[in-house]
Structures are given as structure tokens and as C-alpha cells.
């Protein structure tokens, strides 16, 4: 799994590339934790290039989502598709996560 960060206005977009599994999902948690320490307040996690996720990956997203919610900061997860979508649906968390279809929608929602 590879993580890349880019910036759009005040929002930081994290592009996740590869598989979010039991061997590497902690990396995303660590990255977001470091960014929170640097006072980043707006996050978009882009899962466009993620085709495999397991319970550790879902766990990482839950941890990130609940941490950011508790801090009253902003997070949107975007481009969920394929098996990632199916696994989130199986855990019935589609309503729990703040989700948009595209990065553009996420940026618009971020400003709202």
C-alpha cells in the first residue's frame, strides 16, 4: 500500500494505492495521526485505487473517522467501489462513514 498526500485549498487529500489489509492498514492510521499532530483539520481519503480491504482496513477507517469526529474536524471518504464497497456494506457502515462518490463532491461538501 502506498499513501500520497496532496493539497486542495485547506483540504488534504490522501490517495491510497493498493490493498488495505492486515499487514499495512496501520500505516494510514499512523499517517493521519501525524497529520492531526500538525493541526491538519480537513481530510479526504481517496480509495479510488484500492481494490481490496479487510477488517483491519475497515478498522483503520473506523479509528480515523471516530478520532476526527471527536475532534470536530472534517473527514470525507471517497471513490469507494468494488469489494471495498461490498465489505463496508456487509459491516453495514455505509451510513456511519461520511462518503461521497467523487473527490469533487467531497471538496464541495467540505466547503458546505
Amino acid at each position, binding site marked *: 500500500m502506498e499513501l500520497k498526500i496532496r493539497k486542495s485549498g485547506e483540504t488534504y487529500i490522501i490517495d491510497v494505492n493498493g490493498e488495505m489489509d*492486515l499487514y499495512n*492498514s496501520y500505516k494510514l492510521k499512523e499517517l493521519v495521526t501525524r497529520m492531526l499532530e500538525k493541526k491538519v483539520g480537513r481530510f479526504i481519503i481517496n480509495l479510488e485505487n484500492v481494490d481490496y480491504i479487510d477488517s*483491519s482496513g475497515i*478498522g483503520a477507517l473506523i479509528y480515523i473517522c*471516530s478520532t476526527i469526529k471527536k475532534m470536530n474536524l472534517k473527514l470525507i471518504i471517497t471513490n469507494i467501489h468494488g*469489494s471495498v464497497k*461490498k*465489505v463496508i456494506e456487509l*459491516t453495514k457502515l455505509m*451510513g456511519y462513514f461520511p462518503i461521497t462518490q467523487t473527490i469533487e463532491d467531497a471538496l464541495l461538501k467540505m466547503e458546505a
Partner: protein
Amino acid sequence: MRAEASKNKVKKILVDENSPLFDKTNMLHKEFPSDFRQIRYFTLLIVQTAPPDIKDVNLLEQQISEIIKNAVKHGNKCNMEKKVRVWYSFSPEHAHLIVEDEGEGFKDLEKWNSFNRTRQECLEKQNFEALAEYVSYRGAAADDNDGGNALFAALEYWDGGFVFNQKRNCVAMLKKFPKRRLGVQVDGDNS
């Protein structure tokens, strides 16, 4: 009455030593050391025997990997001396899996079922604020890398049953897939 009926619908993990899901007749068998680094590799060795139709964007692989991970990590505590035994059979209409470890058994099973019941209630009420406390189950031995959500998905996915033996160190499960219709159109049949 309606509330009662709705309660009964909540899926739960069963303990039933005599479940037909433990019948290993005609199932293939493999056993592995409890090597955490190789969980996905072991899973692939099993899934490669499944027909492509039921692999559905890696979902079968992912679900089997979770069960093997539980056996390796929570059952056998990653002790390489301890084995994980897997029996499996696949067809275009089913996936049947039995996974046994050499651990002490899933002691938290009742606690997990109770946790899941509350979680389901939050979901039914769309109460996402309360749900926040029930998104992941933390057993006594859980660490930061445990998602705590694998079994919620497992109960949904394995729709033909998800059953432990009495000792709770062996779990059997079944997934049913709908029969595919043959793509033959009969003249005049518009249905």
C-alpha cells in the same frame, strides 16, 4: 409481537456441535502453521480451487482470510507449533468452510452476540451517534491492528450458517450463491 419478531431476526453466532455444517464428507483439507505473515498466501491456496463465478471481486478470499486470521492470531496466538486445519468445498452454488485451531476456544462468544445485538439495534434506529460505541468489538486480547469488525461481516456473508463446536475452537460456515440461469431465450418467451 412485531418487536419480538424483529429481535428474533438478529443474526448470531451459534454453538452446535451437531450442526450438519461440521460434516466433512467430500471436503478438501489443508493444514498450516500459525504464521501470521502467510495468512493471505494460505487463503489463496484455498480460494484457487473455487469456481470464478463465486469469487466476486475478491470477497470470498477476503472473508476466508478473516476466518484464518482469527484462527492464527486469536486461536493459536501465532504460535508456529500450533496448526490451523481447514476443510473446504466450493461449487457455483456454495462455499463451505471449516476452520479449526488449537487454541482455548472463542470464550467471548456470548459477549460478542450481546454486543452485536445492541449494534443491530443502533443500525435499525439509524442511531449513528450511539453506533459509534458499537462499530468495533474489542475482546480482552485485541490489539490496535484488530479491526474488531470481521465477524459482523462474516455473519452477513455466510448466509447458510456460522457455527462453532462445543469447545469453540472450530467454526463451520456456509455461503449459498443463487443459481445462474442459462442464457437461453425461448422464442416468444418475454418473461
